[in-house]
């Protein structure tokens, strides 16, 4: 099962890497061809403006993957850094970092992002990911801090200290493997939320709008273009939905396999 996850994810990555080079994206509207059915010209039909759905899906994949991964990666890395340092250092450092986290938790995120995107032009998906990560890292940092703190009192950590195993060993060999399942789950959830969040940000005009973003496609299909009400529109509606679901699911399977690697208790037998 896990291999399916890796395979599907790999397929998405390959499509994202090479697809846009192979398939041209024609952005000009051909209204006479709106909501065309499947054909050799249009593998998945056309959207409300007669543009090819498959091409949009392929081109959108690159942005989606980059946004999802970079949001997840930035959020997890920042949360890990802040949460673990805070828990292990204690004292003034802890107080300071917790203060920062609390600020981020209480400041409303949309206005924050509006300001940030006005200050820094968000052109590429990776920066976009960083922007979205600002939303997600504080909650994770707090719970990581709590987990590391409680782990400090577990007997096996106490023994490691009595054996003078060194902070580096304790962090990476004792504590971190116990956190991986939690981290990978959060990575998935953050990546998934990034896709939806990116749509919201684009709708607000904070970031250049890209029609081929799957989230955007879904939004346009469901709420903007009447595809929801027309039988011919179902391809336009289902294509991005299926792509998002498939991508999410592959992430879930991949996360499960990473968890198993770090927590062998989860392996069968």
């Amino acid at each position, binding site marked *: 099962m896990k291999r399916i996850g890796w395979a599907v994810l790999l397929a998405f990555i390959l499509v994202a890497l090479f697809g846009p080079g192979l398939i041209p994206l024609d952005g000009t509207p051909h209204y006479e061809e709106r909501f065309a059915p499947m054909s050799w010209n249009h593998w998945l039909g056309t959207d409300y403006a007669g543009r090819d759905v498959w091409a949009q899906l392929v081109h959108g994949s690159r942005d989606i993957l980059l946004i999802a991964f970079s949001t997840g990666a930035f959020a997890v890395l920042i949360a890990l850094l802040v949460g673990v340092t805070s828990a292990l250092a204690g004292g003034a450092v802890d107080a300071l970092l917790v203060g920062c986290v609390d600020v981020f938790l209480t400041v409303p995120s949309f206005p924050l992002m509006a300001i940030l995107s006005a200050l820094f032009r968000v052109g590429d998906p990776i920066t976009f990911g960083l922007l979205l990560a600002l939303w997600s890292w504080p909650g994770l940092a707090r719970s990581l801090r709590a987990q590391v703190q409680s782990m400090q009192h577990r007997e*096996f950590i106490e023994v490691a200290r*009595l054996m003078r195993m060194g902070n580096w060993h304790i962090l990476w060999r004792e504590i971190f493997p116990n956190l991986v399942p939690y981290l990978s789950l959060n990575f998935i959830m953050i990546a998934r939320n990034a896709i939806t969040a990116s749509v919201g940000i684009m709708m607000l005009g904070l970031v250049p709008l890209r029609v081929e973003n799957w989230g955007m496609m879904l939004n346009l299909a469901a709420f903007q273009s009447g595809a929801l009400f027309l039988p011919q529109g179902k391809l336009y509606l289902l294509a991005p939905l299926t792509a998002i679901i498939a991508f999410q699911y592959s992430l879930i399977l991949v996360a499960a396999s990473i968890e198993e690697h770090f927590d062998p208790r989860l392996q069968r037998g």
Partner: protein
Amino acid sequence: MKLVELRQTSVQLGKVKALREINLALEENEIVTVVGESGCGKSTLGRAVLGLLKPSEGQVFYQGQDVFAPGFRMSDALRLSVQVVHQDSYASLNPVRTVGQQLAAPLRQHKLPGNVHEILTQVGLTPAEYFAAKLPFQLSGGQRQRVSLARAALLRPRLIVADEPVSGVDATLRLAILDLIRRLNGEGIAFLYITHDLATARYLGRGGRMLVMYLGQVIETGPVEELLDNPLHPYLQALLAALPPLDPRRAREARPLPLRSLDMPDATNPPGGCSFHPRCPYAQARCAQESPSLREFGGQLVACHFTGELSDLANPPA
């Protein structure tokens, strides 16, 4: 050489004075047992010996050095000389690493000679290759304790604090682990064996000293066999009376316990004078006013004003 010494050591845990002016010196190669009921402070004593608790009064010495002296930094050698085996065998091991990894790591960290398979064989976990690949959840409680013992011993400590090491292990397998501890003791490691089970205390601690604790104090101490065959402090007498003999006929003879009250007093506010006096069937006026210190009596040290005179007092238990 005194490996660890506690001098007039008191430890405050929140509102409770968990250790009250304890004096204890642990010598090389000996096995010292500490017994008492829950709340008596025996686990706290273990942690104090491990140097994990800063005393509110008194000092903790490791091979003559005061480990809580301002500016003192404990060397690796000193730190590694005292190790621990916990009661909860599962929590003592990292749940996501194999036995082999957990034994190899300290060897590597401290560049010690030694071979994981040899160590596993020495503690009776054979075939070694099989056990080295196992995760803690795949082992029984007894096997996990053997791994904990192996881990504690591989750093060649001078002393291991064993806090209820066999409580969670099945009865038929306990003795094998206690025998293993005696073997390790024969190879030069001293043990502080903490337990509430008087029978295993005798089995493991035979030939050595025993301390009986009550509400943070040592109330009787001496050779194990002496204490258990000839208990002098009323509390120890009550503990021994509370143990049903392993013979149904004798076990059912109605024997009220020589105690005036069944429940432990509140540890945040221990009784004045002798802590045991509210429950003691022989209590006199002096007991409520004056706290007895440990006095010598027939090869033991007992904290009671009326040691040796109890049968004269002979108040019937209420």
